[in-house]
């Protein structure tokens, strides 16, 4: 169905080709998962399938790309619209109309299908994706999962034989992601659509894949094969696979269910070992396990904090206290008030009633200069904080803004992301590097409270592991950290305490291991495999096994 022959892509002004000598054949009806580090060329590979590369992006393409017998060299994306459907990470950016039903019909209108066919297909697609109740809703009122399903539906109505999905669940909370993946699986099983899928959060999708394509990056050849076999060696792997590798299970389990069946022995060994050990890198408070040392002084507090936007109550009577050395994970579905809480703590929104205090002052009344000494925020789009032309200029600006000795920011940066090219443009950095740069800038003024909004969006496993290490170090240094995140694996590995928000209210507040174990939505994979034991990460398991072999 999809055939890439000796595919090579070089973007203009790029020193090296992004893809070189790629040969890949995807037969009809297969779900093929593309994995690789950030910047390895996953998106380029996907976008070359419907001709967006090079027709839309520019650059030079060598070799051939054949989809359903059509060569993308002679067929621009619009001429492939009837055979390839493309869904990206942010569905909102691709919506053309503003009502669900019209959005579903848009692609068919472009193809010039007759009215009765369009009517029939819209109804079928509404049913297939469970959207029938939403048909008249404005797209702006839908939740993340619903939007992503509408985006899927809007390409499906054209009856494509190939579906290309670039990180379809990265921006979604775990239940919404499951919503989308369930719909996807039904398409593959019932309609026999060929799917090419890229996703950073492998733990969500790997069990659905028939075949895995690993792009090692650089000039190394593609690795293609059975997921279980290939994952034994790839540098990117979901926690359940890491656990399998650690214990040496064969065949490697890809799902929690498979792993649980392997894990009877492991559970027995671990319960004999008692409780998980605190991480060795960290002498100071790591309360991921109960009985950890109490954190230090209170640095931020909210008191019956209520925030209202017009008729909508975003936060209601939130009482929280944050202490030095604590890493707090703030979880909850999209729109539950996580971002609003961070905004209240940085004074971007004023409380409607109640109070938020950071370092003893109400953040909304602080001048920017004073504010950054008390609290730092890494926003969802780290690039929002960047505006200089080079990394170096950015660091100098940070030193000036914080009134600290020149070079302070660079020292921090070298600790977080060693060896970053000082002349690089911040936009050209990888997601992980950019996050590190922004974190360094925020840390320059040494605020006792650091807030991070969805820090792992777009990070691969390696970058995520680095981030977790950094967060632990910062906590050891006495910073209080708040992570607003959907990423249960991040919360499990880094957070000492977890707060779950729902509809603007605190639903649960407690040590991470107690909160996430047994929760169907917020448990990390390792906890699901080992439940009811309180081990949350592969790292904890490894340490326990070293101590009690």
């Amino acid at each position: 169905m999809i055939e890439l022959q000796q595919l090579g892509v070089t973007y203009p002004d790029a020193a090296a080709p992004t893809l070189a000598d790629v040969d890949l054949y995807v037969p009809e009806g297969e779900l093929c998962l593309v994995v690789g580090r950030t910047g390895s060329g996953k998106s380029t590979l996907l976008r070359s399938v419907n001709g967006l590369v090079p027709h839309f992006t520019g650059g030079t393409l060598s070799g051939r790309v054949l989809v359903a017998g059509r060569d993308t060299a002679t067929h621009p994306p619009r001429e492939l619209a009837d055979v390839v459907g493309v869904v990206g990470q942010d569905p909102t950016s691709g919506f053309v109309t503003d009502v669900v039903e019209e959005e579903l019909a848009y692609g068919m209108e472009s193809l010039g299908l007759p009215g009765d066919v369009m009517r029939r297909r819209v109804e079928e697609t509404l049913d297939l994706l469970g959207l029938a109740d939403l048909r008249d809703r404005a797209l702006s009122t839908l939740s993340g999962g619903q939007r992503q399903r509408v985006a899927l539906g809007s390409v499906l109505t054209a009856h494509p034989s190939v579906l290309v999905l670039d990180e379809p669940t990265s921006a979604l909370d775990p239940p919404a992601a499951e919503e989308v993946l369930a719909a996807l699986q039904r398409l593959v099983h019932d309609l026999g659509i060929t799917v090419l899928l890229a996703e950073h959060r492998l733990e969500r999708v790997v069990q659905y894949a028939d075949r895995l394509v690993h792009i090692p990056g650089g000039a190394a050849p593609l690795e293609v094969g059975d997921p279980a076999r290939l994952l034994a060696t790839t540098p990117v792997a979901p926690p359940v696979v890491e656990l399998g590798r650690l214990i040496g299970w064969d065949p490697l389990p890809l799902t929690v269910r498979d792993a649980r069946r392997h894990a009877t022995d492991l559970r027995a060994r671990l319960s004999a070992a008692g409780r998980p050990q605190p991480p060795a890198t960290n002498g100071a408070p790591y309360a991921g396990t109960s009985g950890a040392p109490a954190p230090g002084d209170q640095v931020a507090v909210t008191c019956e904090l209520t925030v209202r936007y017009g008729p909508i109550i975003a936060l209601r009577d939130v009482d929280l206290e944050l202490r030095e050395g604590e890493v707090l994970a703030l979880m909850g579905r999209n729109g539950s008030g996580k971002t609003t809480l961070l905004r209240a703590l940085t004074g971007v929104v004023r409380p409607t009633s109640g109070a938020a205090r950071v370092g003893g002052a109400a953040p909304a009344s602080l001048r920017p200069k004073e504010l950054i000494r008390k609290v730092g925020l890494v926003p969802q789009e780290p690039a929002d904080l960047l505006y200089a032309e080079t990394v170096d200029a950015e660091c100098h600006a940070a030193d000036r803004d914080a009134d600290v000795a020149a070079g302070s920011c660079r020292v921090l940066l070298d600790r977080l992301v060693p060896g970053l090219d000082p002349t690089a443009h911040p936009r050209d950095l990888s997601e992980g590097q950019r996050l590190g740069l922004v974190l360094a800038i925020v840390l320059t003024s040494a605020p006792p409270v650091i807030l991070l909004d969805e820090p792992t969006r777009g990070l691969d496993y390696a970058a995520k592991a680095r981030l977790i290490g950094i967060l632990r170090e910062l906590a050891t240094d006495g910073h209080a950290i708040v992570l607003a995140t959907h990423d249960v694996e991040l919360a499990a590995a880094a957070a000492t305490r977890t707060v779950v928000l729902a509809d603007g209210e605190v639903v649960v507040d407690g040590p991470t291991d107690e909160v996430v174990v047994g929760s169907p939505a917020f448990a990390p994979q390792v906890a699901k495999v080992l439940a009811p034991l309180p081990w949350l990460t592969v790292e904890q398991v490894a340490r326990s096994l070293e101590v009690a072999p």
Partner: protein
Amino acid sequence: MPTLRTDRIIPRGLHPGAWWVWAIGLATVASRTRNPLLLLLVLSVAGYVVSARRSNAPWARAFIVFLKLGLVVIAIRTVAQVLLGTPLPGTVLFSVPEFPLPDWAAGVTVGGEVTAPSVMASATEGLRLATVLACIGAANALANPKRLLKSLPAALYEIGVALVVALSFAPSLVTSVQRIRAARRLRGRPDRGVRGIISVAMPVLEDALDRSLSLAAAMDSRGYGRRADVAAATRRLTALLTLGGVLGVAIGMYGLLDASGPTAMGLPTLVAGLLAAAVGLALAGRRTVRSRYRPDPWRVPEWLTAGTGVLAAAGSIATGIFDPAALNPSLLPLSELPLPALATAGLLLAVLPAWVTPPPPAAVTAPTTSTSRQHAGTSADSAEAARTSPGRDHAGAPDAERPVAGPAPVAATGPRRDEHAGEATP
């Protein structure tokens, strides 16, 4: 085909074209007169029909927005006249201290005496503009501008999409300005004042550019701009006809709207222009392969609505021929303002759509639509709020009243508060 009696009972959206013809008819009346009585009558007609036939959709608030804009126009026009204009002779209301201006600014006066006729004249001038604006607002409130697109000739469709997409970027620009300004504050930079705004401009533009690029890519991948093969000669003829037609329409409209120009010049040029444009567009339509999903029907209510708009315009044009003084009367004393019969009758006919059109469908009037738009627009709670389903977002919101037709999906049907805030997907 349903009779008018049944057709005006069963709720459906009226063809947007009908509303636009009607509104343009009213706007024609407003732009041709300086008689405050007629202008106020136009306003009341538009206001009444809007309140009777608008839906609860987000765009339905356009009328109020345009009315407010109109008030601003009147205020600016009047104040400018008081401060800068040369006063018309008449009763002096009060005087403003006069500023002496240097010689090179001769002819411009700042301050001085303020007379009743000049205030009245400028207020009426402002009212006329405000009324035209209100007519456009009425059309926006009654018909979703995006739906109007669906009725455009195939050849114009792509230009229309480009326009609408460009317009819909305005709200998202506001959101990114707010997001980035908030972020700037977090770098210890001033978030207000000129410097604050300038430092925000660059990333906001980058943001908008990124977004339009990804939209363009998505549209391209979904078949936007597919073309059928057409001979080169036909293409050239098409371009010629379309361009000439548009020119004709522009000149004709100018002649028609400007009551001081010869009406005889306006109408024939307009008709000829329309014909040429129509042929050109029909030819151009051959190149596009688009089809339309559920096109809006054009039935008796549409004919009536568009007809009353045309009649209102005709009434005013006729008055202009037979009784031009009534359209531009002397404004004082107010008690002697004339109310020309033909124009008035035409305007009164234009209220009819409030009864002869079907009520707007209830489905789009779900209260969630408006509240959530407001949320995303006013608070701009970054991407998170905009992505929010109102059902998930707030307990006891109007959403709870929305009837739910089926079991799926649970996530959208109302607030759930179990311990871990997990959600079951059916």
